[in-house]
């Protein structure tokens, strides 16, 4: 346990800060861009699904970045602790941060007299956050290119905005603003699969065959 905490401490100290600040900025400026007071359930869902969920891309996609350099990767992978374990710890830490961000944001919305079912929305948006992040992480892991990692969820987002649920069907990320919820379960399942494959793929060469 102590070892895992050490790994996370290094993560917090060296890798998370910048992405953390970007999330703070993104959420912090939202009251300037959109309403966060007295919203109806549909308008609240819009804000959460189309804006707040983007923090998933920021926090989860760059999870492999510290070992981007091949030499560093060799060094880390040669250590006793499996690379996949390092990634899992880092992932868990970042997911907790995301959960906190989302919790605070939803709390503020509720304080501002927005009308919506709190827990349902919390878990719904959280599934979407994990899905966007998982998509980024997966593409980064498979292509070994951070930029492709960012591109995948962003393109997905555009397709969702443009084509709507017509093409994405059960994986349509903005379902709550249409009053539907089952999509979130699919998104969550997809997030788990994408993340698992992404991490496993990236950790190949580390005895995790």
């Amino acid at each position: 346990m102590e070892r895992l905490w050490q790994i996370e401490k290094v993560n917090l100290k060296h890798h998370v800060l910048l992405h953390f600040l970007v999330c703070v900025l993104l959420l912090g400026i939202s009251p300037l861009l959109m309403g966060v007071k007295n919203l109806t359930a549909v308008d609240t869902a819009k804000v959460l699904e189309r804006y707040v969920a983007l923090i998933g891309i920021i926090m989860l996609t760059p999870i492999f970045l510290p070992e981007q350099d091949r030499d560093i990767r060799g060094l880390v992978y040669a250590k006793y602790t499996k690379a996949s374990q390092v990634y899992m710890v880092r992932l868990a830490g970042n997911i907790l941060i995301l959960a906190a961000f989302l919790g605070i944001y939803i709390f503020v919305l509720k304080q501002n007299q927005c009308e919506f079912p709190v827990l349902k929305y919390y878990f719904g948006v959280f599934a979407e956050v994990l899905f966007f992040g998982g998509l980024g992480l997966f593409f980064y892991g498979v292509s070994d290119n951070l930029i492709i990692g960012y591109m995948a969820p962003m393109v997905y987002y555009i397709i969702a905005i443009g084509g709507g649920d017509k093409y994405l069907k059960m994986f349509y990320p903005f379902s709550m603003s249409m009053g539907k919820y089952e999509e979130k379960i699919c998104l969550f399942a997809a997030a788990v699969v994408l993340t698992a494959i992404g991490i496993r793929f990236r950790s190949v060469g580390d005895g995790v065959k």
Partner: protein
Amino acid sequence: MFGQLFIKECRQTAKSLIYWLIVLVLIFNFATQLGNMDIMQKPKEGQEDYGYKQSDDKNMIMRTTLGQLLEEYYRESYSTYPIGFYKSVTLNDKEDKQIEEIIKETTGLSGRTETRKAIEKWYAAQPKETNAEGALVLRKSMEAEPVEGLTFERFEELMDEADHILGGGSGYEEVSRKSASVPMTYEDAVEEYRKLTEKDRLTGGYARLFSDYMVIFLGLLPVFLAVTRELRDKRAGMQDLIYTRKGSSVNIIASRYLSMLIMLVLPVLALSVIPLSQCLRYASASGISADIWAYVKYIFGWLLPTIMTATAVGMFFTELTDTALAVLIQGAWWFVAVFTGISTLKGGIYGWSLIPRHNTELNWTGFHDNFSQLASNRIVYASISIILVAFTAFIYNQKRKGRYTVSWKGFGRLKK
């Protein structure tokens, strides 16, 4: 040297994974949005409906806009959509007074009491209809009579002011005022069709529609290509080998930029062949003299400046910070441009958006009347991007000489 470098850069792009992913996304976008495009048939008399058009009845615009203003003023709460998301605005006393002044000048009503009376009077005069559940249904939203002698120009001025007080995105900005749409009559429909086939020579209208669907993706995708290219040298450990070459920084950066632009335009040109041939087939069958170059004109005139900007942003911020920061910046810009653009979907209002919209093959009039705005928009973006590329070359040159180093995750330092 420039030419050979340019060819080498094109080859490099053609071999990169990210490029083909971008092409794939463009193809997907085309197939889903324009894959089975129907060409508009000549309207026939007696059709059930002919679609909608934007109302240009000035009196009507004034009446509905002022009606909304009265209601919102009375409620002391205004609905705005600054970047496409709903935001309710309440005003402080000073701002409230300013709106009061505007209402006085436009409708002659002063203060909340008079306003309330006017609203009550209007609703009392409406025919009472009930729906199946027995609830009251109103056919029309509130309208207010402008004061006599109020010119449309003065009205526009005052509404701009009101929108400004409300922080933008309100129902009083130019976009919303014009967006009152009314059903087209048969005559209207024939006129629109005539403009499409004669003024736009068919292909013009469809090339605009094509550009509208493409520009959404082209406002973002190029940044990925540019960032990948600029990070590649460092990632490959090849930086010093290139830095110590004789070739000038301007040559290196410009050849990269130009090659990326060409490689990004190529798939768009290729895709445009499909709707073009569709249009040409229809045109020859219906005796329309189509403009075969329309797509090329729109791709270079409408789309290229957006591609140029997204690419330049990618190169500039990557050289400046050695990070993927540009993705975030372009992403944010894209987000704001697309969501604010939702209200200008049907074209005719292009403003200074990076992603100008015109989501219809019709509305030639809107395009024609606002062409100079669109042209200046496009010229400004093309210029901005060239300036950014020039700065990129400057930074690159400083880096080569060791005069600029990125010391900590994106916080660069320029020596002397």
